[in-house]
């Protein structure tokens, strides 16, 4: 369906009329349409997978929406796959962008007694609780 050809930054910058067609980051290697990514496996998302992701994300989607979304997701995922070019051997994943220690606070109750405020915006609050559709038969 997608012809196996993946986009690279150079291709994608050509999409849309506003950014001039020859825009690309410099220095940028040529399109890697024949070079598989170094570490990320080649992933093409099928409509079945899109349906599964929508289920995981708890978003109801029609068949038309799924058909429309699949190529969009493939386009975006194909583009991010260029990260496979980067050698990250021995690199620790970043966990905090600014070094800082997590603080501890005194283990005391410093909030609470605001039940009605907490429930004030609930679409369905009953007897001081959030109400949901019946879960247990």
């Amino acid at each position, binding site marked *: 369906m997608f012809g196996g050809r993946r*986009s690279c930054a150079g291709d994608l*910058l050509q*999409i*849309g*009329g*506003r*950014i*001039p*067609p*020859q*825009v*690309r*980051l*410099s220095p*940028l290697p040529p399109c890697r349409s024949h070079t598989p990514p170094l*570490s990320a*496996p080649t*992933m093409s998302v099928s409509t079945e*997978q*899109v349906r599964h*992701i929508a*289920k*995981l*994300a*708890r*978003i*109801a989607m029609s068949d038309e929406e799924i058909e429309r*979304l699949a190529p*969009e*997701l493939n*386009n*975006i*995922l194909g*583009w*991010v796959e260029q*990260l496979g*070019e*980067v050698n*990250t051997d021995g*690199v*620790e*994943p*970043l*966990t905090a*962008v*600014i070094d*800082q220690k*997590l*603080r501890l606070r005194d283990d005391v109750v410093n909030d609470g007694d*605001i039940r009605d*405020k*907490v429930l*004030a*915006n*609930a*679409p369905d609050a009953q007897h001081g609780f*959030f109400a*949901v*559709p019946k*879960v247990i038969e």
Partner: protein
Amino acid sequence: MSELTAKTIAELRDGFRARDFSAREVAEAYNAAVAGAKALNAYAVETPDDALAAADAADKARGNGDLPPLAGIPLGIKDLFATRGVNTTAGSRILKDFKPPYESTVSANLRKAGAGMLGKLNMDEFAMGSSNETSAYGPVISPWRRKGSNVGLTPGGSSGGSAAAVAAGIAPGVTGTDTGGSIRQPAAFTGICGIKPTYGRCSRWGIVSFASSLDQAGPMARTVRDCAILLEAMAGFDPKDSTSLDLPVPRWEANLSSDLKGKCVGIPKEYRIDGVPAEINALWDQGIEWLKDAGATPVEISLPHTKYALPTYYIIAPAEASSNLARYDGVRYGLRVEGEGLNGMYSATRAEGFGAEVKRRIMIGTYVLSAGFYDAYFTKAQKVRALIKQDFRKAFEQCDVILTPTAPSAAFGIGETTDPLAMYLNDVFAVPASLAGVPAMSVPGGLDGQGLPLGLHLIGNELDEQTVLNAGLAIEERAGFTARPEKWW
């Protein structure tokens, strides 16, 4: 613009103190300007009474001499900030009519400093967008137009309402938030100033979360000085945000100086992108000359992982968003749409409540975090993010501040960019600083051939907002950017 709405925040503050006018006169002038600018769709909610109440309090306090720093100043607040009792929807249908019973730390800080609120500013839904077209309130129309054209332009995004309000003179200053350029790109598109401080300077408490490791609040205003004034009031340690920096707030305004003697300005070679309009590169070169004129020495630097910043961002930000937005489940607040059982209710609510771009990002985020793909995408992106951070660490061993263009184009027309990826590329220059958590600012540099503003972008080392502001001031003084959009609304 009336005489009062043409003034900067510094001028309003000083004039109010000198009894040239009352705070009520300022609030009334702005309330009238806001009411007369509905065609821009910049405000999602107008709160004229709030602005008047703060003004009256300021007028009353003026007698006793002990005025808070923003007494008499009315501001616009981006709709991402929770405001007690006032609709806070993040531009989404899923939060329609949500009235927080609490106030965000940043807006509370501004209130404590004496500011009033003119209203809540329109924005891209959940701050996901670069054109303000994804808002459930409809797009914001920029007050700027191309020469001889009446085509509606975007003010940029996601802080599009914020940017349009300042540019149109319907707020002297506003709050914005920046996850991957959402303060800086709209500031550039509308000819105003905007700064994203170091990650952790402004508390995220009470700001509707998008991507928590990137989200940062900051001010947008007409001048560099006004940004410094507002940022001082917004920033500060907050125990309610676990990533808030426990550091004193510097006196950025008092220490403003456009003398850059002894400072080195880094010019990253990787930001030279083929095909960017020549006017943008010419403005960049002009910016280098301006900073040299201010006493700085330019030095070529390398940020080797620049080209990987956008793809890294488009893994990390959607991943965090998919997790953060899981809270919109139709149970505790916001929209509920009934469906088959509990899962059916969740899915129906989220299908109807979220717009197309938000769904797209939740889907990408869910995919890259799902079993079997997590390491290949998310862990990989966090490793590349570490390398990008390292790039900036090394660069700041060589220079004090980095100068680049803010965006690869001037403002574009509403509906002109329909491809999601082409839209993402707007933030190509802005995203690396977001991933590195360092402060960055856009200041207007000039107009392009079509009469539209272009911005220059200054990136500083972590915690060094002062050098960013000072270099911004040096550019502002030399650019002499006084252009204002011609009133058509």
